[in-house]
């Protein structure tokens, strides 16, 4: 396994090479305590080309995208951009950590919902997430969780069974189709999909 150096195109423009391991990203990360590989280690793995190890970490899907690391990095490394690129890679390769499947399923349900309606329909999103979560790990508590929330939301006029849809849903689908990694790679882009 030859480890390639960091010039992987998926990190282009993110100043990954600049990281000198000061650890400020990890010091400020609200999720670091729960992570298997902490942020500065993720960036070191990426520099060393050990992308599979980084992309298989639980850490990249525990990240809440709060941008504290990006804000504080003394070398202006685009920390969240690097984690985003690793998340995309973990999706492409099927490397998402088993413990974090629910986070992936939620994000997937979120995108599917936008594609369908143009805007988020919360009731549909939650149903879709719970169903896909249940099919993934057969967790009954997940299905039942927050069942008592619905009446409380209704009481407050916050429950919309029929969510909004945009008028022009076809354009939304076309945007999604054109942004699929294969479609993006075939055009001249800033951020080419890399095999």
């Amino acid at each position: 396994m030859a480890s390639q150096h960091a010039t992987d195109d998926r990190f282009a423009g993110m100043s990954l090479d600049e990281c000198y391991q000061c650890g400020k990203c990890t010091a400020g990360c609200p999720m670091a305590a729960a992570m298997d590989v902490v942020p500065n280690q993720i960036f070191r793995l990426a520099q060393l080309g050990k992308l599979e190890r980084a992309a298989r970490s639980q850490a990249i899907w525990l990240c809440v995208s709060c941008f504290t690391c990006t804000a504080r990095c003394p070398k202006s490394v685009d920390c969240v951009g690097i984690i985003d690129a690793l998340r995309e890679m973990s999706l492409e390769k099927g490397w998402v950590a088993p413990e974090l499947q629910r986070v992936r399923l939620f994000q997937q349900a979120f995108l599917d919902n936008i594609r369908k309606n143009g805007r988020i329909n919360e009731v549909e999103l939650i149903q879709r997430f719970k169903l896909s979560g249940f099919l993934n790990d057969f967790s009954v508590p997940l299905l039942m969780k927050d069942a008592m929330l619905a009446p409380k939301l209704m009481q407050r006029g916050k429950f919309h069974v029929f969510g909004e849809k945009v008028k022009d849903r076809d354009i939304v689908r076309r945007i999604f189709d054109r942004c699929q990694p294969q479609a993006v790679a075939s055009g001249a882009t800033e951020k080419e999909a890399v095999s």
Partner: protein
Amino acid sequence: MIEIGYYPGCALHGSSNDYEASVQACMKALGVRLNELDDWICCGATAAHSMNHMLSVALPARNLGIAERDGIDEVFAPCPMCSMELIKANRAITASPSLRAQIAEIVELPVEGKTEVINLIQVFERVGLEAIRAAVKKPLGHIQAACYYGCLLTRPPKVLEFDDAEQPSLMEGILEAIGASTVEWNYKTECCGAGMTMAREETIIDLAGKILDNAAAHGANCLVAACPMCHVNLDMKQADIARARGASRGLTVYYLSDLVGLALGLSPEELAINRHFVVRDLDAAPATSEA
């Protein structure tokens, strides 16, 4: 009369419709007319930027293209997730002519990236603190607020260039203008757990729990936020947090527009404060609360 473009975003048209009611009532009282973007679409939020980079530029860019097409130079986005994504797309498009050309094809609209996108605090600044101070009918002397900025009002700072990312203070300035006092505390820019509410509840219990604890420990009698997602985690989830952490608490979480609206003489009902989960009667001096 100030006229401004308006991008409510999905949350405000969903279960955070209390925030939308509050923003609308407050803006009307201040003479700000909001022109909603025609057939706006979701900004993609965290899901898009963590799963598909091109989509995370294209979805907000479509909305910027709609604004440009309709001659709207300035757009107010009350949700910091939306405003950050719109501004980030603007920056990416203006920095790269090739990306700009590609995005125009993807979203079927030319997008120059020239639309000014502003958050709730900036709208109040546009109205002017002196104008707000002059319009106050009921100064909020009994409010001792912890101003909570969360993540995306100020981060990433190189993209947003708004306030100080570590020690922001513009919200405190607005509260001062409406006669409220604020506390110094440690968690004003810490993350509440964001979109993990459904997928990983323990994240919210931990992060939002620490925020509520720290605000209370510094003598705040309420929290003020300017983000629908923060409000969900700190208000709707507060009873779950209290249960899981073994503490009982009832800290009211206001939207910034709630407090400005109250000071302008609007009622809690007009501002939909009665539809929050943790509700406290503002006029009753010793606070009783229900989480």
